């Protein structure tokens, strides 16, 4: 909303006119200033003049020689415009004036006739785009005064973003009222010329929906002659960002900007049966609005009907059928108060947000309707030469009364801290136009223009606002117990471990399409996916049941931007259609950890080609996590959808499947356009972060160790982990470690050799060679018995 300072001046005598000081005052009142435009003018030599004579140019057909009175005798000026006659009041740039575009006016001769200045058009003065003719001002403006007085320049225009709780602030009046409270000064409502004639509007008004229409007032103006508004008014409207249309329409906009109450003018003779009825529409009805669009109405729309049907959309936009036109001679002026949500939904449904609807959807003052109507009707009468009838039709649907709130000093103390006195509070509230009686509690009567103030807390905000938000001394309360939980600390550690392993954290959007998941080979139907009713893009209307599509896209993005090696992880939510266990009103959703790695990974060494990502790298990352977080987990071969069927492990923690670690299936890699092997993993977060029992401290043995190697030949399907666990069992507590140090597949078809280094050590003695031999033999026997393993080289 834009407010020109010159307009504000009519309402209040401000202690400062400095734009930045005023912007600060507005800001600290809660009215965010989005822009300050300083309109300047160097029109020291442009004056109001009156054309006192016109003669044809002796030597040119298209221009005329005018005599113009500018207060100090008449000047001869040649003019090419034809939209005026003798007696017209005009804007005259005299020699020496510099117009926008560095256009300097001088005395010059045109085909033998001297011209001492220029009669200006709007465009020449930079006031508007009109260049069809010169500016013709209305009569009654004093000749010889500087033209800048007429257009109120220089001026400053403030552009505000008004919060939705403050409908009252969407007007010059509302801003004046808040500034008056801020500076503790008076404000006024400028009076308009108001001389109605006797009579009541020839109109019946009926409210069939009293909740939708709280109040409907109507007035009538007769003998209207539709034409332009006074020039000064048009300039004010333009500065406020509203296009001037005609004196009748301008009057409604002018009063809306000034007082904050939108109005609508009907061409009275187009109102069929001289009746206006407010009611909800029904399906199938249509209404062509002022913008020429045919609107299909719905039963929630609140419509004004006449004898013929829908004729106006309440509080939003008038109808074309009853629009004021150049031929209008009689006007019904409507000032009505509407139910805010009704207007809001209607405006959005029809994509019709107007200056009027933005005010009505916040709530326009119930008690302002009649005042606004009289003011607008008076202005129409004044500007159009018509007569306003004295009578006002005033139908109330739902009456509204000022809120009454009891405020205790304790309410103020509790929220703002101690120190305020009844006198201070009373004085602040009175400055805001509130009535205050009594001391503690203070009985406060809130004017109806402040629908946001209904409770003590609302009054407390008003007190703080006027007292000054920045005057409260800062203090810092602290909680009794704070800190990260064990899970939260473990999650941070997890992030660090992954970063240390060369992965970067990604954040991807959780919206997916069925295609993404099909490419991954997930056997999910549409029904298995949680669906957004109103997605941003129809093709991404599902919520992800896996983090992988987003990460794979991110990896592809990086590859296409020149990175050869990409390692990303994400911790984020996945969503399912089953009800959540912990709150069955919600769909199941939880956090997962996922990663994708392509290209080089691990230690980089000059001249040696580094390790590239594959299933083993993924498993290495997993073991690092397991080790860092002290998780005991089972790892076994698995073929989940999307993963490589023979290069993927299932991770079990506490007997439950926690996720999978391995490689992307070659098919998915092709569909995602990812070259080479792609290391991937997806593991539920909660089991990773679950508390683990504290580790027990064991004193390291001081006795010597014994290392020996055993190389077994086993079927290639035998898991190394099984061979280790079978052979380890017989060693019992003597086994300190066992580690496969070589894997060799080329021994015999369907076989592989695994070489394991064992380390034995007792905690209480030096092992004898006999003991060692027994353990070694036991291992060989166990491997043979459980897994058919043969000892190589035996």
């Amino acid at each position, binding site marked *: 909303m834009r407010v020109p300072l010159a307009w504000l001046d009519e309402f209040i005598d401000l202690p400062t006119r400095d734009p930045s000081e005023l912007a600060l005052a507005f800001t600290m009142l809660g009215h965010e200033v989005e822009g300050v435009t300083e309109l300047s003018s160097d029109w020291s030599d442009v004056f109001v003049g009156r054309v006192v004579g016109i003669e044809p140019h002796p030597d040119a057909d298209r221009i005329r020689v005018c005599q113009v009175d500018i207060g100090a005798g008449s000047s001869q000026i040649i003019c090419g415009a034809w939209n005026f006659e003798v007696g017209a009041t005009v804007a005259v740039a005299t020699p020496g004036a510099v117009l926008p575009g560095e256009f300097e006016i001088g005395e010059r001769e045109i085909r033998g006739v001297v011209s001492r200045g220029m009669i200006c058009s709007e465009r020449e003065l930079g006031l508007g785009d009109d260049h069809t003719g010169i500016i013709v001002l209305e009569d009654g403006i004093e000749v010889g005064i500087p033209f800048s007085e007429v257009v109120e320049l220089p001026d400053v225009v403030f552009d505000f973003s008004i919060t939705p709780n403050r409908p009252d602030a969407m007007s010059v009046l509302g801003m004046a009222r808040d500034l008056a409270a801020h500076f503790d000064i008076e404000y006024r409502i400028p009076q308009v010329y108001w001389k109605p004639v006797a009579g009541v509007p020839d109109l019946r008004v009926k409210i069939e929906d009293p909740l939708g229409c709280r109040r409907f007032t109507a007035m009538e103006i007769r003998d209207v002659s539709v034409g332009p508004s006074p020039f000064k008014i048009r300039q004010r409207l333009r500065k406020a960002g509203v296009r001037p249309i005609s004196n009748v329409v301008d009057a409604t906009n002018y009063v809306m900007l000034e007082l904050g109450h939108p109005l609508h003018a009907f061409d009275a003779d187009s109102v069929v049966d001289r009746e206006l009825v407010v009611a909800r529409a029904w399906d199938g009805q249509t209404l062509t609005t002022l913008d020429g669009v045919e609107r299909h109405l719905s039963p929630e729309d609140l419509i004004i009907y006449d004898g013929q049907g829908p004729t106006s959309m309440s509080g939003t936009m008038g109808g074309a059928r009853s629009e004021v036109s150049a031929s209008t001679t009689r006007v019904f002026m409507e000032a009505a108060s509407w139910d805010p949500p009704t207007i809001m939904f209607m405006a959005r449904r029809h994509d019709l947000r107007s200056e009027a609807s933005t005010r009505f959807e916040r709530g326009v003052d119930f008690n302002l309707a009649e005042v606004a109507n009289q003011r607008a009707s008076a202005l129409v009468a004044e500007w159009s030469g018509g007569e306003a009838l004295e009578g006002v039709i005033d139908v109330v649907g739902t009456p509204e009364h000022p809120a009454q709130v009891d405020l205790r000093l304790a309410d103020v103390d*509790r929220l703002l801290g101690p120190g305020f006195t009844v006198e201070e509070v009373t004085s602040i509230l009175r400055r805001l136009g509130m009535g205050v009686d009594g001391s503690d509690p203070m009985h406060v009567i809130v004017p109806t223009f402040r629908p946001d103030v209904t409770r003590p807390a609302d009054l407390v905000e008003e007190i703080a606002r006027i007292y000054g938000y920045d005057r409260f001394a800062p203090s810092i309360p602290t909680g009794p117990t704070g800190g*990260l939980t064990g899970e939260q600390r473990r999650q941070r550690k997890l992030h660090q471990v992954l970063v240390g392993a060369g992965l970067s954290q990604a954040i991807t959007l959780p919206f997916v399409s069925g295609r993404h998941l099909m490419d991954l080979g997930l056997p999910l139907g549409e029904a298995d996916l949680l669906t957004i009713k109103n997605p941003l893009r129809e093709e991404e209307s599902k919520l992800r049941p896996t983090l992988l599509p987003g990460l794979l896209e991110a990896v592809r*993005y990086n590859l296409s931007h020149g990175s050869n090696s990409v390692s990303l992880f994400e911790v984020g939510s996945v969503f399912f259609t089953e009800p959540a266990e912990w709150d069955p009103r919600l769909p199941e959703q939880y956090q997962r950890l996922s990663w994708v790695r392509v290209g080089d990974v691990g230690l980089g060494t000059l001249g040696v080609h580094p390790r590239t990502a594959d299933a083993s790298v993924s498993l290495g990352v997993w073991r690092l996590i397991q080790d860092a977080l002290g998780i005991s987990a089972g790892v076994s071969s698995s073929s989940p959808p999307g993963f490589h069927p023979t290069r993927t492990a299932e991770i079990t923690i506490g007997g439950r499947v926690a996720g999978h670690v391995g490689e992307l299936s070659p098919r998915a890699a092709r569909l995602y356009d990812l070259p080479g092997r792609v290391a991937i993993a997806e593991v539920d977060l909660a089991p990773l972060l679950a508390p683990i029992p504290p580790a027990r401290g064991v004193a390291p043995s001081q006795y010597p160790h014994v290392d020996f190697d055993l190389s077994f030949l086993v079927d290639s399907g035998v898991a190394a982990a099984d061979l280790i666990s079978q052979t380890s069992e017989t060693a019992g507590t003597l086994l300190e470690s066992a580690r496969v140090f070589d894997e060799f597949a080329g021994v015999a078809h369907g076989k592989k050799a695994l070489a394991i280094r064992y380390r034995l050590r007792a905690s209480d003695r030096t092992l004898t060679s006999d003991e060692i031999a027994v353990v070694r033999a036991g291992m060989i026997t166990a491997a043979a018995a459980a897994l058919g393993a043969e000892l190589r080289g035996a």
Partner: protein
Amino acid sequence: MDPNLSLDELLASAEGVLTGATDLVGLERAEASLLGRNSVVGEIRRAMSGLDPSERPRVGARLQEVTTVIAGLIATRRVELEAVGESELLRDDGVDVTLERVTFPRGAIHLIQQTIDEVTDVFVGLGYMVASGPEAELAWYNFDALNTPPTHPARLETDTMYLDWGNPDDQVLLRTHTSPVQARWMESHEPPVYIVVPGRAYRTDTIDATHLPVFHQIEGLAVDRGITFGDLRGTLLHFAREFFGPQTEVRLRPSFFPFTEPSAELDVSCFACDGGEVGCRVCGGSGWLEMLGCGMVDPNVLETAGYDPSEVSGFAFGVGPERLAMVRHGIESIRHFIDNDIRFLRQFR
């Protein structure tokens, strides 16, 4: 041969001979020539038995003296030559320290995560706990419990994403802020409450330089006896100074949110200019940076939670880590946060 004379000559020549030895092999040869069997010393030693017995002690003593001195000279020369050899070895073994022969890979924590961790740590230091809650949330917790009327425009589908799930009376949506967690927390905890709630939030916004449909929020809530507007101001001032630096000032100005009353916007003084420098690239010359929304918890919110607003009061704020990070690190577009370009991610370690 006069043994004494010969020994004097030997001693005089020893230094030159040893200097002539430039490596350890040469030193071996020099040692042999000075003290070996065929050296003057060897000859004299062999000739001792032929000497007059009265001469022997004197010559013997002299011989001993000279060999000791020469042996000392040899040992000194050996140390010298060994040091030279070692330094040559070390030189040949050197590395170019500017060449990256071994690189340990390291990724980066996402800047948004770093920001969240940093902000939560500030509040953890003030005794806050860190809470979380579901992203697919009931409209009740997202709106109703936070005093947002049924007709509030934020509930419209143009602002909020709704899910096609469950019972129509328990509308499920993608939470538009992390504030529903305050309602859930208060429902199950008695005051005092000091929590921060980082997490993802969703709005029906198309992606541009300042909007994402999925973004993050850190909600803060303190409810206790005697919490005042000054506590809000002091707490946020502390936070702003921790995050933007000790010189930072804050400005609270009135605003509006359904869940707070009084409500405020917090501006932070520009850290890039000295307050209102014309054309400052960070603040645009205003001297202030709009940072977050906050206020005193609305009594309706406290009542819905089962708290007595005449007994306890509180403040709440919601800050966007994207905004914090963009301002502090000079990031011009919010899109970078979801592009996941590793060249961007790795700038912030």
